């Protein structure tokens, strides 16, 4: 199985767990569906932490992992990064090539609002994972 798919599966577990998980807990969850080594899970979690999509905190002798943000927040952030490239604020970088750039400023503003709304809802109640 590709490493990317595995990272994706681990993220899904962390998102649905709603609380920080240890490597052992993630491994147990994944092992019910497939054969996978404990060290592989450790490597994947380490990679995710390096990418800063997962937070790592020490608890006694073990590490616990939780998502850095909800899936919706991350997707909104990704879209913002994508559309920010057209709006001109970031036009020094030709990183992404868009199909068409039309009302990018308005789009970006709407997205920022959506992102803010998700963040506000997050702060108001049901906080998943520690901050």
């Amino acid at each position, binding site marked *: 199985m590709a490493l990317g798919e595995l990272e994706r599966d681990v993220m899904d577990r962390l998102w649905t767990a709603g609380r920080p998980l240890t490597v052992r807990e993630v491994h147990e969850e994944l092992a019910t569906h497939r054969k996978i080594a404990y060290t592989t899970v450790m490597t994947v979690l380490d990679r995710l932490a390096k990418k800063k999509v997962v937070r790592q905190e020490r608890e006694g002798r073990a590490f616990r992992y939780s998502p850095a943000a909800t899936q919706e927040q991350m997707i909104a952030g990704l*879209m913002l990064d994508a559309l920010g490239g057209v709006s001109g604020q970031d036009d*020094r970088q030709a990183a*992404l090539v868009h199909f068409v750039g039309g009302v990018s400023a308005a789009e970006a503003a709407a997205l920022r609002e959506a992102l803010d709304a998700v963040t506000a809802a997050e702060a108001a109640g049901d906080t998943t994972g520690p901050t």
Partner: protein
Amino acid sequence: MTAVWFAALALLLAGPVPAALARARWTWQVPRAALVLWQSVALAAVLATLGAGLASLTLLFTEQPGFPFLARHGLLQTTLNGLTSFLVAVVTVRFWAVALLVGVRTRRRRNRHREMVDLLHRRESTGEVDRAVLGESGVRVLAGPGRAAYCVPGVRGNRVVLSDGVLQELTAQEVRAVLAHERAHLRARHDLVLEGFTALHAAFPRLVSSRSALDTVRLLVEMLADDAARRRAGSLPLARALVQLASAPGGDGEMAVGADAATRVRRLAQRPAGECGAGDRALPRRGLAVTVYAVAAVVLLAPTAAIALPWLLTSWDFLTR
């Protein structure tokens, strides 16, 4: 005098020539040839600048050791030569430093973006269009708000990214046109061309031509991808997708279509579909393309031959004497 010619050529290639090229409309007929011309003008400008600096330096130091140059040519010309050398050094170092920075930043942002897309894209299909799109290799769909259609180029793997908003608003045929357009960008490595002109603009943002050069090259690249897409999916779906995605969401009466999008749509309407065959219009266009390629070659090679060769020969003479 070589240094002066080089400097004049560099100024010409950095100012009036790109300004005129940005205003030209015939380039829209032959975007590929026009892009080659743009690159050749930019490269020739860089070479001419380098040439001006080197020529001034050799003039200062090759006559005889020490500064007999000052005694022979006077204060004014010595100062001018020194100044040219210095200026060229500054310009050259600045350009390559900025180009390097742009390259590093672009790659870092792309890698990060691709990682995040792979981590966050939607895997479950919800409709028929969806199933077809999700099944294609390198295509990723993002759930959530917003409309986005773009590609992430890179040697470690390309991605074409579409958002749910785009899939909901476009028909299957229009989606096919968008995918064909983005694939054309990736196949032809249009990002490399864009990166070069982005670096040029980032290094000399106050040079008026660098802005219009970047904008024009961007538009030409889009037209090139449009041509590839219309061959695969037809002009009409492509134009519809362009209008749909470039117009403001919500719809408060008037359509706010970006200037570039409108230009591209109008161009799609002007040229008949299936123009790749030998129609009445194909022949003059081919002639235009050949002419533009020839001009591009001359722009790059003629200065080298006319100015650089005599100078190289003199330098060689001096070194081997």
